[in-house]
């Protein structure tokens, strides 16, 4: 791709970005909930607080003045009070220029501040990221965006189906979804060829094998040490939801790995047509060894990061480290271990399949 073309894509992307920002900044009339834009903020009171665990914080009261952007009150000015703690664990500090949702009490008709409007920032980040992606790689970027859009659509359809069926078929549904999404994503990355077949079969078999092994072991050990009830959002039945989450969560990483190994092996066959299936299998293992660690880390860091706020809350509320970990980390830890098993299994599975299937082609 020429620099000139990149520049044009960047400019057009930037323009769309700005349009998106302006559009969402002025879309209040599309919302039914009342929205104001803050014109003035004044801190009226500050009180130091100490809780039962000797944590010091400050309660701040802000006087917020704003103008209505929608509903029949549009254009009218309003003064409201906001109270927040400096730590902002579940309250917000408001700034001038921010757009904020209001809540109107149904009986007294009085307004209170609800929460900040977020669509402008999110639309900006989404459009900005897509532009960056397309500037770096236009054709493959388009394909990636297409695959992610389709995946998202299918994901939502599957969950709608699950809710319509009363949630009893979650695991079979997510299993089928996983197979469908894998096929779709890999076809868009690799095209419908032999390498696609290798990666697809390897991804599906390694993922399901890892889940099967884990389910059997968890059953034998009676889920020793795992507190399913600590899962976020407490959706029943815990175990099924957990397995479905793990299944979808590792697909991307396993696909990453299987495409990596299979394309390297295909390259090897092209360079050395005389290579035997056994040699191919061994090279596959050697390539795989290098990528297991970094890939497991990707998922592991994400899972750990998600638990930060709740872990800190436990620690600061006078709990021991051991208790905190048992209440906040067992689910994430188990999820990482199952993912790591899948990622590890994918190496021999891909190497084996590639050594047989890629070899056949040259024979």
């Amino acid at each position, binding site marked *: 791709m020429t620099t000139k073309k990149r520049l044009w894509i960047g400019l057009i992307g930037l323009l769309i970005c700005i349009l998106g920002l302006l559009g969402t900044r002025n879309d209040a009339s599309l919302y039914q909930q009342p929205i104001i834009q803050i014109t003035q903020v004044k801190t009226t009171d500050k009180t130091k607080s100490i809780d039962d665990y000797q944590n010091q914080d400050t309660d701040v009261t802000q006087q917020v003045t704003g103008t209505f952007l929608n509903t029949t009150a549009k254009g009218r000015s309003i003064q409201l009070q906001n109270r927040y703690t400096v730590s902002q664990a579940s309250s917000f500090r408001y700034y001038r220029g921010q757009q904020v949702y209001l809540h109107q009490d149904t009986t007294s008709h009085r307004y209170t501040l609800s929460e900040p409007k977020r669509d402008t920032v999110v639309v900006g980040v989404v459009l900005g990221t897509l532009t960056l992606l397309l500037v770096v790689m236009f054709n493959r970027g388009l394909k990636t965006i297409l695959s992610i859009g389709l995946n998202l659509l299918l994901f939502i359809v599957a969950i709608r189906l699950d809710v319509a069926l009363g949630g009893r078929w979650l695991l079979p549904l997510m299993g089928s979804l996983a197979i469908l999404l894998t096929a779709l994503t890999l076809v868009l990355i690799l095209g419908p060829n032999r390498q696609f077949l290798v990666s697809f079969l390897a991804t599906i078999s390694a993922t399901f094998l890892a889940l099967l092994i884990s389910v059997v072991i968890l059953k034998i050990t009676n889920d020793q040490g795992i507190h399913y009830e600590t899962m976020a959002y407490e959706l029943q039945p815990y175990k099924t939801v957990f397995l479905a*989450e793990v299944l979808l969560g590792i697909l991307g990483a396993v696909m990453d790995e299987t495409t990596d190994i299979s394309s390297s092996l295909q390259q090897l066959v092209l360079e050395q047509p005389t290579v035997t299936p056994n040699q191919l299998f061994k090279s596959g293992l050697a390539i795989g060894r290098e990528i297991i660690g970094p890939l497991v880390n990707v998922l592991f860091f994400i899972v750990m990061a998600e638990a930060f706020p709740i872990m800190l809350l436990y620690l600061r509320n006078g709990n021991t480290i051991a208790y905190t970990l048992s209440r906040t980390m067992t689910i994430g830890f188990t999820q990482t*271990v199952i993912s790591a098993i899948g990622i590890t299994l994918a190496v021999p599975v891909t190497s084996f399949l590639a050594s047989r299937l890629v070899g056949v082609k040259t024979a």
Partner: protein
Amino acid sequence: MMVLTFVLLGLLVLVCGPQGLTIFFSLGLNFVVIVLALVLVAGGFNPLVILGLLSLTLLATSIFMNTKQPLTAKTAFWTALIVVAGLLLIIGPLSTLAATYGFGAEDAEEIEGFSLAIGLSFPQISLLMMTIGSLGAIAETSIAVASGLVEILEYDQTIAPAKLFHAGFEIGEKIIATAFNTLFFSFFGSFLSLTIWFIQLGYPLAKILNHQILMGEVISLLVGVIGVVLTVPMTGWLLNRFRKIKSNEDLLKKP
């Protein structure tokens, strides 16, 4: 849980030989380091200082323990470090503007009975979360691009810097696409239950687009993607610099 962990260890050794042990222990080490960092934050250390130290440690363990080639490891480490530092400049304002820090309405049950005025800055903790969450993907990408480029360099030591930089893009394209998928599917996994919740309770689209927890997660995901995309040119550029320094030294040594 313990049995499952031992099965993982067994499998790693079976597939990777002695290197499996290294992978396993580097994972364990990362776990200990992260928990230790959180204990320090809870103990009153500044989250941003811990963020710097933690990123440094995690990048060092996950890059140097997984890569044997010294030039690859060095390039990958510095690339990841610079990209993470650059990302902080984006994440900081974003997290404040989007106000996705702290606990959302759906967390209410989980945090019931806790004292919330704990004197820790949740905007800063959110910064810590987003950075650590994208660290793994950035490290993985930088290792992959650097090892591909070092391989080219070994094959042809005199390759022009511009050509090497360009080759980085070619290698990087596929890596960006798959890394995007890795992040995206992990996002699907962690948001399965929240999405079921949304659909069960019939949340309107307007509410979903402004949802504190979901949008926080979308921003984290995209920050990871931005990090991955930026890693690709950065790796090529840094490798060119490192190799120049190397060849200059060689020139000095030779006569």
